[in-house]
């Protein structure tokens, strides 16, 4: 992702001059990541789509405030805010509870690789469903930290940039989020240990 930073800077500079095509090139580049963040935060496809679209609109409106090399972290911060706003909106008007496990119809694409055997595939599908349900039980700040760090693979520093938080706060939120997920999965009997491996 670092290799794309110079290209990001160029596209950001063009976007700041009002070039919508340049901005849309950035949209194409990051929409998967933004949509995934929103989807994991919200657990509903429709809500994730709304939040993703809102995030890109907000990013375009505020593009003058962005510095090119930090575009990704800046965009993820906007996406995180859009997801949290959408979460609040839906909590105020709870058509579907965000705490309930996601119905199959809501997750047509959230499937593990079907090239594994049918049993393994079914097992992983169940684990995926349970883990997503567990994520939705976390408080928003912990959920966001865990998603950015463990699902999206950002470093602590990048998570801090995206959330506007200090390293200590990030570290604490990630550890508390993981601890809650562990307890939830243990209670549900869904935590399978990957065999005895060396610790590090």
């Amino acid at each position: 992702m670092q290799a794309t930073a110079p290209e990001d800077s160029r596209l950001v500079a063009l976007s700041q001059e009002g070039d919508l095509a340049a901005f849309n090139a950035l949209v194409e580049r990051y929409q998967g990541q933004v949509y995934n963040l929103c989807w994991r935060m919200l657990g509903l496809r429709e809500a994730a789509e709304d939040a993703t679209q809102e995030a890109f609109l907000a990013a375009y409106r505020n593009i003058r405030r962005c510095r090119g090399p930090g575009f990704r972290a800046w965009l993820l911060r906007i996406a995180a805010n859009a997801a949290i706003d959408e979460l609040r909106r839906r909590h105020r008007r709870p058509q579907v509870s965000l705490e309930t496990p996601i119905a199959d119809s809501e997750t047509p694409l959230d499937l593990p690789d079907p090239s594994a055997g049918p049993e393994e595939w079914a097992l992983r599908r169940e684990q995926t469903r349970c883990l997503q349900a567990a994520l939705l039980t976390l408080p928003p700040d912990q959920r966001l930290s865990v998603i950015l760090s463990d699902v999206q693979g950002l470093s602590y520093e990048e998570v801090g940039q995206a959330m506007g938080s200090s390293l200590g706060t990030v570290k604490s939120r990630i550890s508390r989020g993981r601890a809650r997920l562990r307890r939830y999965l243990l209670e549900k009997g869904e935590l399978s240990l990957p065999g005895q491996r060396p610790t590090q």
Partner: protein
Amino acid sequence: MRNPFVRRHPFGEEELSSYLDRRLSPAESARLEEHLPSCEPCRRHLEELRAVVEGLRDLPSMPAPRSFALRPEQVEAARRRTPVGPAAWAQRASAFSPVGVAAAALVLFFVLVGVDLATLGGGGGPEGFVPAPSTEKAFEADQAVGAAPASPSANGYEAPSLGAAPAPTPTPAPPAVPAPPLAAAPPTIAADEEGREAGTPEPTVGAATPTETPLAVAMPEAGEEGGDAGRWVLRGFQGAAGAAFLAAMAALVWQRRRKRGVGRT
């Protein structure tokens, strides 16, 4: 109480989590690695956390269901939606919490009331604060004392009451006669009894009062006007702070009701 593991083991969840991310210092990592072989609960805890993290990393990536590229009409609609001018100001103002505004207004109100009480002597009642006369008026007062306006006592007149504030009689009295004390017996008696001291120039403490009091009451214009103006300004601010408090409380109640109403739908 919530986490007995942390109490019983030297490494808490944060250390174990940081260890998985290689974020512990070398010294702490070495200490943990030394501890793990002899502590089965810590080992199991670490493995469970590792399983959680690996499960999260293995979550399938979701492809975007459609393109989110912006169309010019979307951008234009969003621009129109962005408030400008008074609407933007109202939006920014709405970011203030009514609780904070109410608390600030209440504190301001009490501070203003405190200032009012401390400086204006409880609102300037008839026996309250009497503004000090200016130097010029003080001089006039001295002259008046010299002129002994209380001379009626010597002539058998009634002592002037505080509220009446009569103008000094035009007839000059003998200058050496001190003014009778206000709180003392009737002036005629005082004059009779202290007639032998008529020549002494120093009046008693009580004797100064009747001369000062009518003066203070008789010439309040400059001092009281300034005091009144200040008092009314202060009370205006008190009213404004009180109104702000009430408005903030009303906003809070309205906000709560609205939230509850929305939650029910």
